[in-house]
């Protein structure tokens, strides 16, 4: 399960990925913040196309594990209406050493932002709302998110 409407249980992700071969654990959480491009944000609604989003995140986990030779990469993204301060995404990486874990975690979030069919709709404090402009999806999963 990679897409959830429930609050992300980061503690559970950490517990279920325990690995005695790994000396490094990097946890990244994306958090809903209270501003976007100069406007005050009151809350945010995430929507997604679940069939493809599940596949993309599953394949991204596999790619990260292979590319960075890390035993553990777990990614969970939340959809629904989120309040300020709530996590929208969590990425748990475990590796024998910290360098690989840091690099793998950064690659995972950067690539997720280019590939996963999920959309942010900002609800502003003045009562208006708007979808954030995003990054066009490519038909090729091998396009690099960054270099």
């Amino acid at each position, binding site marked *: 399960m990679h897409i959830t409407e429930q609050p992300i249980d980061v503690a559970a992700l950490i517990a279920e990925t325990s690995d005695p071969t790994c000396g490094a654990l990097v946890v990244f959480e*994306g958090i809903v913040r209270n501003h976007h491009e100069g406007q005050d944000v009151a809350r945010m609604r*995430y*929507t*997604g*196309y679940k*069939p*493809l*989003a*599940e*596949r993309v995140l599953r394949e991204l986990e596999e790619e990260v594990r292979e590319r960075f030779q890390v035993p553990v990469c777990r990614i969970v*993204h939340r959809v629904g209406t989120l309040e300020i301060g709530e996590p*929208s*995404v969590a990425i748990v990486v475990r590796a024998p050493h910290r360098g690989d874990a840091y690099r793998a975690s950064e690659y995972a*979030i950067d690539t*997720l*932002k*280019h*590939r*996963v*069919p*999920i*959309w*942010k*709709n900002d609800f502003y404090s003045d009562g208006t709302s708007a*979808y*954030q*402009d*995003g*990054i*066009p*999806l*490519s*038909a090729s999963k091998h396009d690099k998110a960054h270099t």
Partner: protein
Amino acid sequence: MRIEFYGVLTEAAGVRHMEMEVTGRATVQDILDRLQATVPGLERHLPRVACAVGDDMVTRGDPLEADATLVLLPPVSGG
């Protein structure tokens, strides 16, 4: 054929999904052309839209079954 909209496209189209009568073979591009002509609000979004059938991405030239569900995906902003 069923067409599903996501993200900003739901606002642009004014609906989350619609049905389109399709006879014979049609490509993804054929369907997008018809949407451009019949749903004016989508016009400026369609050049940046990606398409999927199920959990597979499809390209503009791919043929579609008449009973397929074509999913239109605007630029993404997850994370």
